[in-house]
């Protein structure tokens, strides 16, 4: 582990790069998925299409996407923009489904009740539908965050530097601790972001915590999982 202690600065810089790239993609993916997921949820006819098409994005091999997008869109493959856009696309692939499932999970009785007390459509969406979809959306967001952070490492194969650098460089130099350090760093920041999201969820959705215990409801996870 000498290598690690000698290269803490390097690991630190790479971690910051990695976080910056991933977080931008996660946030962008989340924001874009909200309207897409809403459309899919609201318009039954579009639903199959939106879900299938966004789900399809996930089947594109990341390497290919990272090389072909810049050719098609005309920006340099080595730019962070390239990686961030590709990661955003994968984030959307998971999140749209989660947003749709989340809106689905809102008890129709609650929705009706909100209408009955006099919420207009738009106001109801922001005050009732979206917050109540929160727990499922959050579960999807957590899956998205973890897989985005882990996936970002392929950026190094097209020249976008982040923790993935430790893999290619470690392989060329046959330094096992370097590769291992990369994996551990990626996993740690993924789990850290996951934890932060969970805590944020607790803070923002206090009602979801106070549910009567031991209700063994299938958590949102499998649905988000199915999209992954």
């Amino acid at each position, binding site marked *: 582990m*000498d*290598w690690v202690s*000698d*290269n803490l*600065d*390097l690991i630190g*810089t*790479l971690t910051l*790069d990695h976080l910056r790239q991933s977080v931008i993609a996660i946030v962008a993916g989340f924001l874009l998925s909200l309207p897409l997921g809403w459309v899919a949820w609201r318009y039954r006819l579009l639903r199959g299409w939106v879900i299938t098409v966004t789900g399809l994005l996930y089947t594109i091999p990341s390497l290919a996407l990272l090389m072909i997008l810049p050719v098609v869109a005309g920006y*340099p*493959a*080595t*730019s*962070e*923009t390239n990686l961030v856009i590709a990661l955003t696309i994968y984030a959307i692939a998971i999140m749209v489904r989660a947003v749709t499932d989340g809106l689905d999970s809102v008890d129709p009785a609650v929705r009706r009740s909100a209408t009955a007390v006099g919420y207009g459509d738009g106001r109801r969406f922001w005050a009732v539908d979206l917050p109540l979809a929160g727990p499922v959306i959050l579960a999807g967001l957590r899956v998205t965050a973890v897989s985005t952070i882990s996936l970002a490492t392929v950026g*190094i*194969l*097209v*020249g*976008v*530097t982040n923790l993935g*650098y430790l893999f*290619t*460089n470690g*392989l*060329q*130099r*046959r*330094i096992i601790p370097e590769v291992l350090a990369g994996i551990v760093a990626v996993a740690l920041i993924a789990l850290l972001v996951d934890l932060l999201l969970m805590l944020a969820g607790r803070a923002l959705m206090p009602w979801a915590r106070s549910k009567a215990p031991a209700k063994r409801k299938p958590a949102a996870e499998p649905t988000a999982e199915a999209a992954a």
Partner: protein
Amino acid sequence: MTGCSSEDPLGENESTGESANGAIVIGSQAYYSNEIVAEIYAQALEGAGQEVERRFSIGQRDAYIPELESGAITLFPEYTGNLLQFFDAETEARSPEDVYAALQGALPEGLTVLEQSTASDQDSYTVTKAFADENGLASIADLANVSETLTLGGPPELAERPYGPTGLEDVYGVQVEFSATGDTTVEDLVAGTVNVANVFTADPRIQTDDLVVLEDPESLFLASNVVPLVSEDIADEVSEVINAVSAALTPEGLVGLNVQSTVDQMSTPDIAKQWLADNGLS
């Protein structure tokens, strides 16, 4: 280890167009050996009081050449032969001098190369010592006499390169099967999954793993010496410092740098710093 953070090999990976303020932007390939040379350039220039920005570890040549052309990167350690082939795939030049001369003609507007160094890091066909002894191999041509099936290992794109399996057959009459061993080519050669391998000549494992580089009498490969590719705008600014580096960088020296990186696992900034000190350049 006295590595200090200001000499981080990767620096801030800001987006393009940062050279406007006059800083020299040094790039490197995603290849540790190339990165070391780039770091040496950087430290040497910093030692001469220049402001430097690092944009290291860029994968493909076609990814960074456009950035050099646009001026987003202004200095890049390159290899004469491979660079020439990038611009002129059909080139007939083979010797270091010819290649260097042809390269100067082939470079696009705005780019130039400074003095090439004697250190080279070029493609080669390499076998294990045991295999060479067993089959009496000294040159690539001798492979034609080997009775067992030859399997050539190398990066996947070797299959399509002019010096790849087709070139071997056309130039030397040697028939091989190809295996895309990629980043583990040397290990595969040592382990015996391939018996001929496309290895870079500056790879320290040629010595440590007892490998034999086969001679290339018909010049299948271009000479490929380390050469600084530079934007014409700053060529004059940096030429003195960089040419001194190139002059000091010997073939053995380059292998030594690679050994420090892979065997001693030293960090790139430390290697560069030490080399500059050892060569009286800091």
